[in-house]
Each structure stands twice: as structure tokens, then as C-alpha cells.
């Protein structure tokens, strides 16, 4: 039993399912990130939770109360939309106050809560500005504050960072986590950016073509992908069919191998020809560097081994120069790092 409980949720448009058999639990004060490629149905799922889209099947409950058929405003859900959708004719303060006014709260109470929230997101200086005078990052914070000031039971974030540039994005990501620590809220966030998902999420739900293919902690989803699709989407894994594994390592497994690019090691010497099983828990193969990409903390090498393309990440140490394209090298892989899927 989760704080948020979604069971068997489904939505079809003209018989084509947008999403189906969605089961998801989110604990109190937890940030659940719904990650998946664009078009996988994650935004529609979020809108169904918000009540903006009617699901065809299934139910949604918050804190034991079934909200599946309630109108959006009766659900106690706050939302931040991709394009923020701030009310353009209202100042920052008025944007925040509007929702509280609908609850018919006394004016002093509204003023107090609006001021406190504006301070919390650090927008005191822009409190009387209109949305079109704000920067992208500021708009985003107003949208977040407007949702949080109503103290929702659940906060929905629909790709809240996608319209921002990389720098501001990182800062707001941290800010979102800080706010969550300070005031504590339960949230479901949608993103197509797997890095963002891993950083922000307490729990990650990977969504692919309308279904949740894996739910777990960031560590669990990244380190132990449940399917080839999850492996290639989240961890950028190398996926090798049994025949390919046999060509490389002279060992035929029953199922495909998923190998993380960081799992390869460069063996010190080339003492054997061809692939080999050194022992039951270690494999080696010859490869050639076909190209490299500088990713920052790591260098990504694109290797060719037995005409199979492999991705290998090596820690970028300033003292080690890059390996030149064309260089032969021997790669080693520990069996513990191989995931059969």
C-alpha cells in the first residue's frame, strides 16, 4: 500500500492504447520520476493522474482515498507544466494568490503564505513583476511556487526543465531537491532525460510504449536493468546477442548480454590471440579503437571487435593521454558485470 496508489490504469484513443496496465506506488515525501522516450505516453499518464484526461480503466488513490473520477480541482494535486502556463495578466504574487483565493481563505492568511513561498523560492525582488518580464528560470520557479503554495498532496511535474538551458537546468534540479528536503512533498515528475531522472528521482519508473517496464531505485534501475530496452535507454548498455558473445569470447550464453560501457577494462598485455575465457569469471577479447568521444569525466571509445561495435567508457585521468584511433587493445570483462537479459 503506497501513499499514492495507481492500479491497472489504461487510456485508449480510438482503440490505440496510449498507456495500459499501469501499476505504480509512490511513498509519502518521495520523488518518483517517470522516464521514457518521447511519445511513450508518460505525459498523458501524468495528465490522467491530474484529472485532465479521463482514464478508460483502473483507479488512482491518494492516501487511501479514490480520486479516479474526481474533477481536477478536488484532487488536491498541484502541477507544473512544461511551458509553465503562468497567468500572463497577473503579477508573480497574484499568480500565487489566485489558487488560495479560490479556496476562500482570509486575505491575511493568503498574503502570509504567498510571501513565505516567494521567499522560499528566492523571488522577493520579482514579486510584483509580470511573467513576460521574467527569465526562463524565474518563470519555472514561479510555476513551482504556484503549485506548492496550495500545499498539494501530490505535485506533478511535466518536463519542468526541458525549456531551460543546461546551466540553469542543473541549478534548478538542485533547488527542487532542496525544496523537497525543506518542506517535504510527494511528487511525480516526467522527463525524457535519463540523467535528470537518475539525479532527481528517489524512485524511477521507466516507461516504454505505454507500459512501465521497470520500477526501482536509481541504483537498481541503472545497475540492474530488467530488459534490453531499459538497458539501452537508461544505461546506454552494450547489448550482445548470444551469437555475438560467442564470436567475441568463445562462450555461448543462453540469453543476450547487457554490458555497461564502464565495465570493460583494458588488459595490460596482449598475450593471447582471439577471445578467451580466462576463468569462469573473467573474459578477454581483442579490439581496435574506431573512434573516441570526450564526455568530460570519462572518455567514450567506440571499439570494433570481431566486427562487432562496442562502447567502452574509461575514466578520464589527466595523466593518461587518449588512445589513438586505430590502436589495437585487449579488453577484459568480469563476469560479475555481465547482466543476462
Amino acid at each position, binding site marked *: 500500500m503506497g501513499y499514492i496508489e495507481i492500479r491497472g490504469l489504461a487510456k485508449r484513443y480510438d482503440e490505440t492504447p496510449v498507456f495500459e496496465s499501469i501499476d505504480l506506488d509512490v511513498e509519502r515525501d518521495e520523488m518518483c520520476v517517470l522516464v521514457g522516450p518521447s511519445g511513450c505516453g508518460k505525459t498523458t499518464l501524468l495528465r490522467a493522474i*491530474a484529472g*485532465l484526461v479521463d482514464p478508460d480503466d483502473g483507479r488512482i488513490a491518494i492516501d487511501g482515498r479514490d480520486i479516479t473520477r474526481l*474533477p*481536477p*480541482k478536488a484532487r488536491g*494535486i*498541484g*502541477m507544473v*507544466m*512544461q*511551458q509553465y*502556463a*503562468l*497567468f*500572463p*495578466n*497577473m503579477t508573480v504574487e497574484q499568480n500565487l494568490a*489566485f*489558487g488560495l483565493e*479560490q*479556496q476562500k481563505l482570509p486575505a491575511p492568511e493568503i498574503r502570509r503564505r504567498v510571501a513565505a513561498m516567494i521567499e522560499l523560492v528566492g523571488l522577493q525582488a520579482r514579486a510584483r513583476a509580470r511573467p513576460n518580464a521574467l527569465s526562463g528560470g524565474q518563470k519555472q520557479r514561479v510555476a513551482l511556487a*504556484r*503549485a506548492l503554495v*496550495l500545499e498539494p498532496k501530490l505535485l506533478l511535474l511535466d518536463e519542468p526543465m526541458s525549456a531551460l538551458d543546461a546551466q540553469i537546468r542543473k541549478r534548478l534540479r538542485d533547488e527542487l531537491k532542496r525544496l523537497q528536503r525543506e518542506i517535504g512533498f510527494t511528487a511525480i515528475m516526467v522527463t525524457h532525460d535519463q540523467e535528470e531522472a537518475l539525479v532527481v528521482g528517489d524512485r524511477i519508473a521507466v516507461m516504454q510504449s505505454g507500459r512501465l517496464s521497470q520500477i526501482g531505485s536509481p541504483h537498481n534501475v541503472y545497475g540492474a536493468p530488467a530488459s534490453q530496452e531499459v538497458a539501452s535507454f537508461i544505461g546506454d548498455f552494450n547489448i550482445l546477442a548470444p551469437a555475438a558473445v560467442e564470436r567475441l569470447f568463445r562462450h555461448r550464453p543462453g540469453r543476450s548480454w547487457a554490458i555497461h560501457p564502464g565495465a570493460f577494462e583494458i588488459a595490460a598485455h596482449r598475450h593471447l590471440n582471439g577471445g578467451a575465457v580466462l576463468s569462469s569469471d573473467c573474459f578477454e577479447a581483442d579490439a581496435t579503437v574506431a573512434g573516441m568521444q570526450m564526455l568530460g569525466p570519462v572518455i567514450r571509445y567506440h571499439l570494433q571487435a570481431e566486427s562487432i561495435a562496442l562502447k567502452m567508457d574509461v575514466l578520464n585521468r589527466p595523466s593518461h593521454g587518449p588512445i589513438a584511433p586505430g590502436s589495437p587493445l585487449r579488453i577484459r570483462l568480469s563476469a560479475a558485470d555481465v547482466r543476462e537479459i
Partner: protein
Amino acid sequence: MDGESRAPSLTLPRSGGGQAGTRLGPTMQGLSVRSRVKLCAFLFALPLLAILALFEIAPLLAIAWNSLHDDDGLITLANYAEILGSRFQRSAFVTSVLVSAGSAGLGILIGLPVANILRFMPVRLQQTVLTYANIGSNFTGFPLAFAFIIMFGLSGSFTLLLAKLGIAGHLDIYSTAGLVVVYAYLQVQLAILLLFPSLGAITPEIEEMATMVGASRLKFWWRIGLPILSPSLIGSFILLFANAMGTYATAYALVGGNANLVTLRIGELAAGDVYSDPQLADTLATLLILVLIVPVIVEQALLKRSRP
């Protein structure tokens, strides 16, 4: 023509070269090329500018000039004094303003909800409706008046239908109220055309957000929708008002000289057999333009003040 064809060949060495010492040269050449292209562009715009000067600006100056002169060509304000002193002419302005404001208001009142529903239709349907509204806004003058006479005239089929249904009080299209209705037929279509683009500012997301924070539809339109639209509502109203104030053909075809509208008075004074008085006609026309220009200037000033 010459500048057009030579432009690329002159700019080419600038991008290819780059030797020190000739730095000034290419820049100067570049400038002259640019100004030649501009001159050429101006030549292309010249025919339109000439026609606008001769057939839009000159006529306006002509009537303004005429309105300030008497029959002997002496400068005078007597024409203005005569019109402003005439109860008949003043009441023409009052009737025109009432009919125009009424029909403009009706146009917006009906056009706004229609344009709003249009937002949610497939793009192709939108295009079709807008194109026909565009064409329909040209159904002025005789065709329109005539259609209304057939439908709502004394023995019009709708008049008879309404009578059969026992709905009392038929619409007298030859009255001032009738004029408002006939004008409104055009104003609604114009209002749809004018308001539809500005409704783009009200995105579905903003409406959804308002729902999420608990606002009813009514609340949403009152607190957010209408305030967002207010500049374009005012602008559209002024345009519709001006459109109705200037309508001549429809009124002429419908009521002939019977209604006391400014445009009908102008037509009478300009070409009437009995009352012809060119100076007075020009004065009346100049006054009409002034009445229409003032709201536009006020609106522009308000717009400027609202976004400093």
C-alpha cells in the same frame, strides 16, 4: 536592377579576401552595395507609394482643405459652424454612433464565443470558417440589404414564419434597430476574424492550470481570459465601430435616405439633386474622420502606457 545583379559579385571578395591594408576598402564597398540594394528595394515599393499618395492621402487632404473654404475660395470655419449648429446634423452623428456602437457590441458579444469555440476545431475547419467569414464580410450593400428585405421585410418569409409561430413583435429592418441587426450580420464575421488570432494567447495549458488551482470556467474568463484579451477586445471594438460608422451602401440600400445617418447625409450633400453642397459634404466627412481617429489615438496611447 543593376545593383541587384552586381551585389553578390561585389560581396564575394570581401568574404574570400581579408588581406591587411584593404580593410577599409571592402567595408566602404559593402556599404555602397547595401545602399544600392536599398535604393532598388525602394524603387520596387515606389508604385504602391505613389498610388497610396494619389488615391488615399491626396483625397483626404482634398476634403480637409475643401472643408475649410467657402464658395469663393476663402478660408473659413463657417462650414463647421453650420454643421455643429444644426440639430439635424448633430442628431445624424448621434444615430450613427448608436447604431455603430450597438452593432459593434453585438458583433463582439456573438463573435467572441464563436471564435473561442473555433480554437478547438481541426485546423482545416478553422481555415474554412475563417475564409468564408472573410468573404462573407464583403456581403455588404445591395446584396445584403436585399437578402434581409426578402427574409425580414414586410412580407418576408421569416416575418411570416415568426407571425405563424405566434412570436409577437416582428423585426422592423427599416428602423434604427433593424439597421443594428443588419450591420451585426457583418460585424459578427469581422469580430471572428479579428479576435481569433488573439485568442491564441489563451493556451489550453493556462486554462488547465486555472482548473487545477480550483477556478471555475466563469472565474477563469473573468479573472484571466478577458483581462488577457482586453487590449484586442478594445481594438476590435474600435475597428468594428469605425466600420459601421463608415457604412454607406448597406444603409442606402436598406433605408434609402430615410434614416438620419452621417454617411447618408454626406452622400446626399455630395450627389443629391436637391441638397447638393460639396463644401458641407466635405466638412461632414472630415468631422466623421475626426470622430473615428480620436478613439484610435486614445487606444494607442493607452496601449503605450500599459507596457512601459
